[in-house]
């Protein structure tokens, strides 16, 4: 048979008279699209607020002058924590000795152990009595709820403490499951000791 076209001889599959259409690539260059895609991703990553802020609950006691309404803390179970300058933490157990001998300095990583130790001491020296059954019932049988009932942490941030320190120490109460804690103003005597300690350590 006569061939009309001479071209397209390279492929011999074609039948006669079939004009070979030029095969266009179906591939699209996607680079600009990817560029745009990632640009948008970057934009949204930067504008997004992934972790919404949380609320830390804080309850303060009502100021009262009436002695009877005040909660008395047992000396044996009290741990007083003071917050000073430069993230320093000071603490003492029970009452502050007049000579300041039980006044100790630590920092935010050390105070956790102190809280845990003190709590364990309180649990060890716990004396069982009839009230425990009631407390257990209220706390759904959590044995520790009665054992550490005498454990009270008193938080006293001083004038130089930052808000961050205050929140951190409140957070420490949650972390260590301390149920009884109170935020109280620092007494002048304690502030003096804190300042003297800060002076000695050259802060």
């Amino acid at each position: 048979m006569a061939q009309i076209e001479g071209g397209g001889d390279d492929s011999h599959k074609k039948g006669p008279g079939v004009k070979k259409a030029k095969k266009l690539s179906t591939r699209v260059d996607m680079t600009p699209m990817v560029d745009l895609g990632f640009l948008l991703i970057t934009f949204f990553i930067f504008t997004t607020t992934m972790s919404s802020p949380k609320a830390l609950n804080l309850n303060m006691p009502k100021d009262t002058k009436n002695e009877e309404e005040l909660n008395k803390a047992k000396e044996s179970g009290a741990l007083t924590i003071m917050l000073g300058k430069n993230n320093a933490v000071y603490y003492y157990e029970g009452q502050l000795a007049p000579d300041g001998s039980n006044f100790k300095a630590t920092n935010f990583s050390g105070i956790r152990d102190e809280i845990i130790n003190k709590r364990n001491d309180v649990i060890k020296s716990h004396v069982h009595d009839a009230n425990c059954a009631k407390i257990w019932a209220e706390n759904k049988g959590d044995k520790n709820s009665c054992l550490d009932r005498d454990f009270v942490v008193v938080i006293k941030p001083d004038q130089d403490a930052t808000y961050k320190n205050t929140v951190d120490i409140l957070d420490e109460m949650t972390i260590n499951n301390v149920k009884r804690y109170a935020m109280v103003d620092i007494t002048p005597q304690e502030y003096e000791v804190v300042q003297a300690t800060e002076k000695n350590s050259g802060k």
Partner: protein
Amino acid sequence: MPSVKLPKKSTFVDMTPFVDVAFLILTFFIMATKFKPPEPIEVTTPNSVSTTELPESNAVLITIDKEGKVYFTILSEKDKSVFDEVINAVNSSRNLGLTDAEKVTYRKTYIVGVAFSQLKQLLDLPVDQQKNLKQPGIPVDSTGGELTYWVQAAKSAFAGQQLKYLIKGDNNSKYPVFKDVIEGLKKNDVYKYNLITSPEDAPAGTELYKQRHKAG
């Protein structure tokens, strides 16, 4: 010698899966994004392990910035009339003599950080210019200061409704300011506060950590 003809491979890489993933991530971020609300005052909040969600409405927000300036904001999404009630209460209790136009401006004022004596000046400015005014902070002292009156006004405006008190303090603000703010709230018989913090994990090995991982 017969030359070995290597087949010429295309350098073109198929980008389709890549694009798929990219757009999947993009879609996720578009969906998950929640634009940061306008924050005229930059505050870096401390971290805490608390997991309580923050109320977005029916709340009073007291901001303490890093210099210890105190700002006051009413958060009420639906009921805008509380803004009027608050400003009216403040106006009459402190004899500010605000005009109606100024009271209307208060509705849109995001944050107030001026003393009562300067409130008129702040509210005279159009809302979009208020952020340019350098606000010196609401005066507070060991008896609560002017913040007491703001809280009082808010408390009466939200009477009968649940009202949360949010305190958003900066990491570097000092404790005495925080104490003064608390004092201002205590004066109004408010003893429960929510401190705004950024979330963080419970440190490993602590009681809380054990508790959470037992439950979860």
